[in-house]
């Protein structure tokens, strides 16, 4: 189970100096595609691997987009978006419209994600621009008696801890994507594999 990272020098040590002279908003806008590519990769990889991910730390989690996915293509005034929703529970695993949209160069920009780790489960909306969890529904399995006894501060701490665990999982999934995206075999192995999977679904 991924926990909050220990305080180490790896959290962007020297990054301020590296980014000196860079306009943050320009950098954010220029690299906005990273979030879209991550969500698209997450969707395809999740479907391909039956929702299972082995995280860099060695833990396994389930993560999949549930019932709403927004895909987009183009920039600014030329942006074309499509929202795909389903009311089926569980949804049809062959979410044809999504595959077709990705095949037509649309990229995932937002989706409702379900994440499961051991006996904990989260539902959230994940937007591409920040990758910060929105509207997090926490459904941890708890002894009801224990929950009743929790005071406000205790309940608050409980929510913080569960959200921190979710944030760590999202960070690790992003790290997993990034390690593949920057690897030398991205073009020779990962891209063909994703395209092959997409072709088999459309």
């Amino acid at each position, binding site marked *: 189970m991924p926990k909050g990272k220990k*305080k180490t020098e790896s*959290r962007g040590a020297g990054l301020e100096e590296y980014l000196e002279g860079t306009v943050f908003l320009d*950098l954010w806008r220029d690299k906005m*595609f990273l979030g879209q590519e991550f969500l698209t990769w997450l969707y395809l990889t999740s479907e391909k691997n039956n929702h299972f991910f082995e995280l860099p730390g060695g833990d396994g989690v389930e993560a999949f987009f549930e019932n709403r996915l927004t895909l987009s293509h183009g920039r600014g005034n030329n942006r074309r978006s499509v929202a795909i929703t389903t009311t089926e529970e569980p949804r049809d695993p062959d979410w044809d419209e999504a595959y077709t949209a990705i095949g037509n160069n649309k990229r995932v920009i937002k989706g409702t994600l379900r994440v499961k780790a051991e006996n904990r489960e989260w539902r959230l909306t994940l937007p*591409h621009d920040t990758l910060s969890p929105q*509207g997090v529904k926490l459904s941890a399995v708890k002894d009801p008696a224990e929950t009743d006894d929790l005071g*406000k501060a205790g309940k608050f701490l409980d929510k913080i801890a569960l959200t921190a665990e979710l944030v760590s999982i999202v960070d690790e999934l992003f790290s997993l994507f990034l390690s593949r995206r920057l690897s030398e075999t991205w*073009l020779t192995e990962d891209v063909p594999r*994703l395209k092959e999977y997409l072709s088999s679904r459309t």
Partner: protein
Amino acid sequence: MGFMKGNPSVTRYRVTVNLPPDFTEEEIGERLRKQSFEDIEKTSEESSAGWVELIDDLSPAFEVGSYKFGPNYAFNLREDSRKLPAKTLNRYYNIAEREYFEKTKVRPNSVQKKELKENLRLSLLKRCLLTTDLREVVWLTGRDEVWLAGSGEKTRLLFEELWGQTFGLPVRLLVPVTMALETVPPENRDDVMGLVPGILSGEEEE
């Protein structure tokens, strides 16, 4: 939505410096008190922003024990604001201008008009009801992160300004590119900066 009630939404910041040794619980409480929320109920101020406690969001007292929860610090960013609709101001101004003319038999000049309008604006603002906006802030010192409950540029900018005034500790918004630059070893940062869109084609996409 925040952590006390509802389904939380998070805007994440990285605190980019180590916590200074003199930032004890008492010191943090003192800094919160100095930038705590000031009530504008009986004034004609248009807005006021500052910190209030997490559990008792009416209190800006920050007694020891009211803002530290386990290893985290937590409090609320409170902003009260009132808005006077332009149409309302104009309506009352027209009445005031007529009364001025009836009393003096001359029309107000441009300086007098401006003064009349400003006095009227301040007087009417006092009669406008305040809107209160509360945003939880959680400082997870163990992760070097600050979470602002909610999203939106206006709230973000207000938080960044007040955080800087209160603690003077720089924060960086966590978004995909800064997350990526933090994730990779420093020698691979240029690789991140050199990435271009192309997840499926392997070539640059629109």
